[in-house]
């Protein structure tokens, strides 16, 4: 699933100047935006919608079907599935976001260093990311979890690291293009330090493309997080998380459809909304300021 993003990414080989209006005008982006806003709002403002504790077990009320009191029914040990859906969404979205941010921070830093300094440092970092890219799909995340052990923080870290190569490559190639620009030359001749040049001059000019990559990556990151949780390598019980809820709901798939349908739909809608926005973003970028594609 991680590679889904990378395939999408290499398709959109033309991120450039952001034309925010074009994105806003795009119909699918509107749908995606509204959907995403609703999901984020209901999960982060969960206490507004439910007064129930997502971990409070009331065995006497186990497996109740959706009703006014329990809009999404209850699970096998009588927890309110609606609260779990809301709080679980919070975690699933956070895993996706934190994962991609870790990947972006690490990858961008490496890419800046690699592209700006060049030489053996570049060779080393490029080699390192090539090695990371040799692990297809979820495998890199699995290896990292094998080392760190299961758990939600480790899952975020694992997902983050598996995004490092994409960010590193993108930043590096844009730095290579910018390095020789006159204003960078000028700053250098005025005696600015390397760190200052990187942060003040080069990074801001790469940030637009990074935003595209981040937007597209969040979707894959959410999917990867849900997959790790589904495999039992993420959140510890009783913590609610969509992937983990789906996994435990599978036991009751015949008696309680609401335990698999809602969390599954949650993941689907979240990723869908981000992909719709991402499509619009890369459409809007198309044809403007094409950077040389390394491949």
């Amino acid at each position, binding site marked *: 699933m991680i590679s889904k993003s990378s395939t999408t990414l290499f398709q959109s080989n033309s991120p450039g100047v952001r034309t925010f209006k074009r994105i806003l005008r795009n119909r699918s982006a509107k749908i995606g935006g509204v959907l995403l806003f609703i999901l984020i709002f209901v999960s982060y403002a969960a206490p507004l919608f439910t007064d129930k504790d997502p*971990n409070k077990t009331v065995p006497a009320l*186990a497996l109740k079907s959706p009703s006014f009191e329990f809009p999404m029914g209850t699970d096998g*040990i009588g927890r309110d599935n609606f609260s779990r859906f809301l709080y679980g969404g919070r975690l699933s979205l956070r895993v996706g976001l934190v994962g991609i941010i870790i990947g972006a921070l690490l990858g961008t830093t490496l890419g800046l260093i690699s592209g700006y300094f060049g030489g053996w440092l570049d060779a080393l970092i490029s080699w390192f990311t090539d090695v990371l890219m040799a692990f297809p799909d979820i495998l890199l995340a699995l290896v990292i979890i094998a080392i760190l052990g299961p758990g939600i923080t480790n899952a975020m870290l694992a997902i983050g690291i598996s995004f490092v190569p994409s960010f590193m490559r993108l930043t590096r190639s844009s730095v290579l293009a910018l390095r020789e620009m006159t204003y960078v030359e000028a700053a250098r001749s005025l005696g600015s330090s390397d760190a200052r040049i990187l942060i003040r001059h080069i990074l801001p000019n790469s940030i637009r493309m990074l935003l595209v990559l981040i937007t597209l990556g969040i979707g894959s990151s959410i999917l990867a997080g849900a997959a790790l949780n589904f495999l039992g390598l993420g959140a*510890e*019980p009783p913590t609610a998380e969509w992937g983990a809820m789906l996994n435990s709901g599978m036991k*009751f798939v015949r008696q309680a459809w609401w335990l698999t349908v809602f969390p599954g739909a949650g993941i689907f809608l979240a990723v869908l909304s981000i992909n719709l926005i991402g499509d619009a973003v890369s459409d809007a970028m198309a044809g403007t300021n094409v950077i040389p594609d390394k491949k």
Partner: protein
Amino acid sequence: MKKALLKGLSVAMLIGLLIAACGGNAPAVSSGGDLTIGIAVEPETLDPGDAIYVQEQFLIMNLFDSLLATAPDGSLHAALATKWEPNAEYSEFTFNLREDVTFHDGTPFNAQAVKASFDHINSEAVLESGGKSLLVDHSYVETVVVDDYQVMVKFGASYPTFLRDAGRQWLSISSPAALEKFGQDYGRNPVGTGPFKFVQWDAQSQIVMERNLDYNWAPDFAAHQGPALVDKVIFRILPEAATRLTALETGETLIASEPPALDAISMSESGKATVQSYAQPGVPAILMINAAKAPTDNVNVRKAMILAINQVELAQTAFQSLGAPAYGVISPSTWGYSEQSASLYKYDLKESGRLLDEAGWTDADGDGAREKDGEKLSIDWPDNPAWSEAFNELLSGYLANAGFDVQYRSMDDGAAYEEMLAGNYNLTYMYWIRADPSPLRYLFHSEGINGAGSAWTNFVYADLDAALEDGDTQTDEAIRKQDYITAQNIIMENALVLPMFTINTSYLNALSVQGFTFDIEGYPFIYDISIAK
């Protein structure tokens, strides 16, 4: 993986409780057909001498025979041995063997085979196994071939329960030729004398056995004689409970092991399948409480934990009618059960709260979790979720209601074991299937602290140690019983364990499966099963 070993030590010395109807002695007709069974755990080996996990025995019993066989009523019967005779000290046992038995590879069964099998278990080739612990713990000396069909098994100490153990799968007899031929790979190429022959093992997928047409030495308590009734048995490895159930529902398997209780009941109520359930004697599902680590080093905190658990509701929610609540450290069907020890705690959230208040744990900030001196009332529970999936969240929920902050940490057996050796736990899950209370010594005698045994309660108390020691050697039954009652009372008075429910072994089978019975240890007796057309 000590825990797994303990779970495997299921010497059913007395009669287990049989819920499923016995097959009766109606003449059964060979129906043929393939019996596909969904099992949860892939075995690591099919070498009976090297096996350690409970799940492996279910497969091994179809491929192998032992010297003796234990009937479901607990009586001893002839199997590969026709006569058996212990000496006065119960340290030497002479067996007369059947002369008409051949192994699946065509080699004859004889005294040499018995010696080779036992010596194999005792050899360096086997690192640690159920069979090895039976032999080594009783100072196995040697097996003497008296003549072709008579052997004498010698131990360095008296071993009063050896005849029972000689009927267990772990001491089954292997073909010496195959042991020699396959060496290290024998566990993947098992050759025995049982009703089914090993065909193939596709890792992560299935293990296939076919009927042994020469089989003519079934124990006399079986419902029929001669070869088994189905042509083939296919054990399909399906670790996810949901998958096992779907496969049964779609007819891809005919028997599902350990089905989710709710589905099992609803499918049997709707007449689509039959639930078979076997209540195991011994130590029920309990959580051992670490009395050496805060906050559970305080007896009131431990008592408050037990009082916070509604066992009736827990068993009902997790297992429906397949589970029974447990209140003591051994279950009622176990010999020497103490009614008194099991009546000390009944679900009482108020009393639980009072005890915690008294111990200084209060919820000052109103977040639901109690604190003392700025510390949360945290309970550390490192565990392999494979064992506790059915109830861990439920149990955490009860404890949370009483103001505990339960930190469940999922990990595999190896990592959990390391945490326990390091003392980093307040709770650890345990059960031990056995009809005699003697495992209590491994679990509660202070000699077993710090991994030397399994005394994870870390509780040192001379009277308890004395009672457990005497129970191990005492020959006067009445005194022995009193020893164990004393031990149970001390354990429960000091709130060392949190009892949950009795262990049930459940199977769900399609309506076409006929003649389903359990053997003494709670495994389906596949030999007598046939498939209706």
